[in-house]
């Protein structure tokens, strides 16, 4: 096992298949449970280029090493990009938010009750796709892993049509965040040691417009530490069409285009909620989650209602 601390983006990464670490809060439990066996760690928190939060040239720029607490408490985000600040403030617990980075939050592993377990627990079952095997225990005839992606901040960033800059094989790339998360999920769906070896550096969000409003809603049974059971982020008002994203429902956040169109129309709130239920029935890819019945989970689609006061 090796560790390297980078102090600049120009430092040479010596590991062949590096695991990039911001706060490390996602990977530690996976290592302890022996779900992952990463060997070569590259620590990023000292790189100043990754620690930035500013509006410049018509974009909001968020460095990947910004902590969730820094985002939650940012006056800039709270005043102009509320959904992002709210999402950061509702992730995990204060202690985790103090060290977890937004880059790490976006690149977190997907989760499933069948592999987020100690090794002894998993030893009674064949290895699944995530742990080097060839089955999904959730949906045994599925050709791919069906674990769900649970990031709260990703949903908010996707509602804002964010793009992401990353370094792969020594070259810098920029793409829409939704595509990168989908690519990350596919790679991450295979055995964990085949995670995407990319270094996420910055997020770019088109500058907020005059009159625009946004909000984020997370449902978890407990406010204090739980992963979301469902989350929503809505951006509306201003001149741009409304944009609505939902998370914790599928291997990546989903964009609810039909419901967003309804939000912009004269439809009543009840009609918007009905549209949201309909759209999520098509977009969601549910799996078995601990102590949660499918019926209650489906009833949560209606919780989009909690954001509809933003329409006014």
């Amino acid at each position: 096992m090796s560790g390297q601390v980078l102090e600049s983006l120009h430092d040479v990464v010596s590991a062949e298949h590096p695991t990039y670490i911001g706060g490390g809060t996602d990977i530690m439990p996976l290592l302890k449970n022996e779900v992952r066996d990463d060997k070569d760690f590259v620590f990023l928190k000292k790189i100043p280029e990754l620690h930035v939060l500013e509006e410049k040239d018509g974009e909001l720029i968020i460095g990947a090493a910004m902590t969730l607490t820094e985002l939650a408490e940012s006056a800039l985000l709270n005043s102009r990009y509320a959904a992002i600040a709210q999402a950061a403030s509702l992730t995990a617990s204060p202690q985790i938010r103090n060290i977890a980075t937004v880059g790490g939050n976006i690149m977190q592993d997907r989760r499933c009750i069948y592999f987020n377990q100690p090794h002894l627990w998993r030893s009674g079952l064949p290895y699944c796709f995530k742990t080097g095997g060839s089955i999904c225990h959730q949906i045994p005839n599925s050709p791919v892993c069906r674990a769900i992606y649970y990031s709260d901040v990703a949903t908010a960033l996707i509602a804002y049509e964010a793009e992401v800059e990353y370094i792969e094989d020594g070259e810098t790339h920029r793409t829409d965040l939704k595509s990168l998360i989908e690519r990350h999920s596919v790679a991450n769906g295979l055995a964990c040691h085949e995670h995407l070896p990319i270094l996420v550096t910055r997020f770019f969000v088109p500058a907020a417009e005059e009159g625009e409003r946004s909000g984020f809603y997370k449902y978890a049974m407990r406010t204090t530490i739980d992963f979301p059971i469902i989350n929503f982020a809505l951006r509306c008002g201003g001149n741009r069409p409304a944009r609505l994203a939902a998370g914790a429902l599928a291997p990546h956040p989903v964009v609810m285009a039909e419901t967003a169109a309804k939000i912009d129309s004269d439809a009543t709130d009840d009609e918007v909620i009905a549209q949201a239920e309909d759209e999520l029935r098509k977009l969601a890819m549910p799996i078995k989650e601990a102590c949660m019945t499918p019926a209650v989970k489906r009833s949560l689609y209606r919780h989009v209602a909690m954001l509809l006061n933003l329409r006014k």
Partner: protein
Amino acid sequence: MTIYSCSQTVFQERRILAELFDLKEVDVHIIKPLVGAGFGARQQLHAQHAAALISRKIKRPVKLLYSREEDFYSVVRHASDVDLRIGADKNGKLQLFDTTFRLNAGPYTTHTPTVVAAAARKLQYNVPNYSFIGLSVFTNHVTGGAFRGYGNTQLTFGREILMDRLAQKLDMDPVEFRLMNHVQVGECFPCASIPVSSNGIEDCARRCQQIQKEIDEKEPLIDDENIRQAWGISFSCHGSGPSSKEGLSGAVVMLNADASVHLLVGSADIGQGSETMESQIAAECLGIPLSSVQITAADTGLTPYNTGTFGSSQTFICGNAVKLACDDLKKKMVEQLKVIYDGCTVKEKDHRYYISGGEELELSFEDAARKILFAPKGSVPIGAGTYKAAACPNPFSVCFVKAEYHKKLNAIRLMDIIEVVDVGTPINRLTVAGQLEGGIAQGVGYALYERMEINPRSRRTLSTDFLHYRIPQMGDMPRTYVDMVNSHDPYGPHGAKSVGELATVPVAPAIVNAVRRASGIEINSLPLCDKFAILPTERGNVK
């Protein structure tokens, strides 16, 4: 053999291990370190004998720790399946209580039969026709064991929901319906032979109503197209000792020349503050400051026998033993002063000693202590007491909960919880309030989201970490109000009764009664997260 064990029952462990290893009890030394919690789980042997066997084999000290997962499934609260019927005449007088009470023991029993039996003895209403069939059921699930409430939680859940439904059918106020049927002082619980010695249930209910009124004046109940709010209530009781009448405790108090004392008790403090409580009883009895009492507890090599910290027994049983030990000490001090002041009359009043006859003297407790220890005809003053509880008085509780139902979301939110108790004279109001608040939190978790889930595919437990086995944290708790009414039990030490398990018992049915009144949906099972989305009490979402 010396074992450091965070046990609730050190003397039971000593007995069992001595038998297992064919040793004399005097050769097995169990020491409980200063570690809290237990709630019943540490009321049985876990790995102590395994560690002892390995240590014997390798002739080295051995430390055995459970992983978090093992800790979770080593023992759980009994799941229950209850058939229950209650009936009343048209005037609202209860006539029938008929139950078949099944508890899920798991693959073998530890406490199941006694948990079943204990539930039978907590019916606090006058019911002329009472039938209780209790069954311990073997299943291929996790082993059920002792947990705070010990069967009372499970049966009171069903009972108080049915009481609410019956009150509604009779068109009676749910509080008045319960009060009119409640056992009073001098009366016996159904199938009990010893009468109730103190009962502040009506005062508890009135105090709850007073707090409820204050809340409603600030925030009237909402009933609109989106939200309906409602209050739900429940009554409960518990015991102040094991219902098997086996509670036994000894206490020893050793006096020093400066009037400080060493207090030795066998009871295990598991975070409920029993050592503080016992020290306070001693200080009160002897008229000395609390800082002059040094307590040693739960060490089988140093302290006298105690059945164990279970059945909410330490205040009543060990507290009475401490009081008896202090009374014994004072009696011996008087006797010794009579020897020292030969021919004089010696009387003790309000912690002062009055010598009259040949000499006229008034001694403080400290002067008397010094005299007794250092006089030519002195002695070593040691007081000893034991208390065996043939019967333990019942503490009582009333719980009110305000909940709201979100009609379009099928979601519920807890707003306020009030719990007022009759625990006799509280020895320490702060620790009693702490017990109430902690017990309420456990009741909230029990009602809303706790479950030990077995995954059918892996045949293993899914909820064996604190992420998946959800218990409420501070941010998840509704506004909580607790209080104690003025009461005094003639048999309790300084009038005290228990509080530990009582605190949890009424919470789940009060929550369900509030939710059923708010939603109009009848509820027969827990946890409520199976039926409703649980909205947290503080939302940090859309501002």
